[in-house]
């Protein structure tokens, strides 16, 4: 875990309201463990917005770290103003990683919804083979192509690209085996649907979840999510909750309860 003044290499809009930023961040990149990890960013020295903003790592390439972000509020809006050569204060890499995606027999299906696709893309790069489903509301929010032959499926709520429907629509049309593992990141309703689906069909699923983070490093106890199945307590001070910043953001789907 490092704090670093990263240098912006590229910062471009890649779809409607969605941007990709490449940062030169040798310290953070060299401490990187694997897909699922995230970094936490500041726009500048101002204490107006004092809390860092967590963003999943979308790609690591030598000393480059990429994020994919959506304009949500003030800070992500500021991100879009950054030009090549500007610096960004980042903390990372943070959090745990997806597991077993390349283990023998594993048949990974990767599911990304909205900007939840950032860690999913990163995971896709790391997978020896995988099916990937990416959902969005409409075609203009997609920047990948629907390529069923390459096992890349897009969905749109309005049918303007790929499969009409949501990622669950696509998932339900796939042949799942006992070796299937789902890896998902996206809005909470999507994750809940996948949690229910995995439970019903008894499929293993790893979910990358979000939570409001004060520090990203275990100091504030702000980022809790409720546990289930009496998993051992790790970093939170009580077994009822888990710290998403340290124990997560990736959980087996039967480890947690959404609020």
């Amino acid at each position, binding site marked *: 875990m490092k*704090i670093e003044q990263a240098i912006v290499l590229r910062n471009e809009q890649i779809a409607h309201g969605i941007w990709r930023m490449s940062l030169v961040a040798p310290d953070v990149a060299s401490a990187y463990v694997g897909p699922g990890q995230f970094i936490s960013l*500041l726009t500048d020295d101002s204490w107006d917005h004092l809390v860092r903003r967590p963003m999943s790592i979308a790609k690591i390439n030598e000393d480059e770290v990429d994020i994919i972000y959506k304009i949500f509020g003030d800070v992500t809006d500021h991100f879009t103003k950054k030009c090549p050569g500007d610096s960004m204060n980042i903390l990372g890499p943070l959090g745990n990683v997806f597991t077993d995606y390349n283990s023998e027999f594993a048949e990974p299906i990767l599911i990304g919804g909205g900007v939840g696709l950032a860690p999913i893309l990163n995971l896709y790069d790391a997978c020896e083979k995988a099916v990937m489903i990416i959902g969005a509301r409409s075609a203009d929010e997609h920047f990948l192509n629907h390529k069923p032959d390459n096992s890349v499926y897009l969905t749109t709520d309005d049918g303007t690209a790929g499969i009409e429907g949501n990622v669950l629509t696509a998932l339900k049309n796939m042949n799942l085996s006992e070796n299937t593992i789902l890896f998902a990141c996206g809005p909470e309703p999507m994750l809940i649907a996948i949690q229910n689906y995995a439970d019903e069909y008894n499929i293993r699923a790893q979910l990358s979840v979000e939570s409001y983070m004060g520090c990203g490093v275990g100091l504030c106890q702000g980022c*809790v999510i409720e546990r289930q199945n009496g998993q051992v307590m790790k970093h939170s001070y009580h077994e009822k909750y888990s710290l998403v910043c340290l124990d997560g953001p990736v959980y087996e789907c039967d480890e947690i309860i959404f609020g």
Partner: protein
Amino acid sequence: MADLSIKIGHTTFKNPIFVASGTFGYGTDNPELVDVSNIGAIVTKSITLNPREGNPPPRIVETPSGMINSIGLANIGVEKYISELLPIYEVMDTPIIMNIAGSSITEYIDVMKKVEAVSSNIVGYEINISCPNVKEGGMEFGVDCEMTEKLTRELRNFTDRLLIMKLSPNVTDITAIAKSSENGGADAVSAINTVVGMSIDHKTKKSNIYTTYGGLSGPAIKPVGLACVHKVFNAVKIPIIGIGGMVSSHDVIEYILAGSCAVQIGTANYRDPGIAEKILNDLNDYLDEQNLNSITSLIGAVKTYV
């Protein structure tokens, strides 16, 4: 190089830059980003008699130049503190101040008695009578002079270590509570805990904090903390540990000028767990530039007009 050491009661600290309760965990994490042995003292997260799960999320939200939290005193409880943490503190270089919270005088006493009963090297106690987020946060003490004095006096009976009462800004007259602490026998007071605040998401129309109200911290409350410290400085003789919104050595100097003999860095740790060390270095440079041997001459030295 200036001598940064300061004395509170009969305890000497190597420097006046402490980290605040609840913002640095139990002081045993984050070895990578900070060398804790440089920190003046670590005030550990509030400990209660029994472990507490804390409040449900959402527990945190950003506000202009600040944040609101409602962690709800999540903590491992005094038993685990004794069995798991005291041994680690034994071998740490940094003085540990144990922060205690409770919902009754007996509970505070029970926690302290348990710790006093075992051998440890903690240097003292900070008594949280000012947590705004939970019913059991001691706020009924923190707003009431008699209760504060009684609690202080009782605890004083059980320890010779530093006894610090942590004051709330959410009162009509903070100096009254400070005087009660002094009368009860406290070695020092620390001020301030968080300011009661609320945050609403105009899009979802929902409260951003599970408990509706939470504690505001960060630069936004620096003016409130400075006013409290300065008022208390003029009201009591015991030392004051300043807290509230410090993010730089300049802020620390302001708190010292207002009357603090030491300070605690809180929310700023979340941005950079190594910030206390950086502030310490900057403070050192400042004293050198100003040709000062120690901070003593700065304590309460703000020049006021009236």
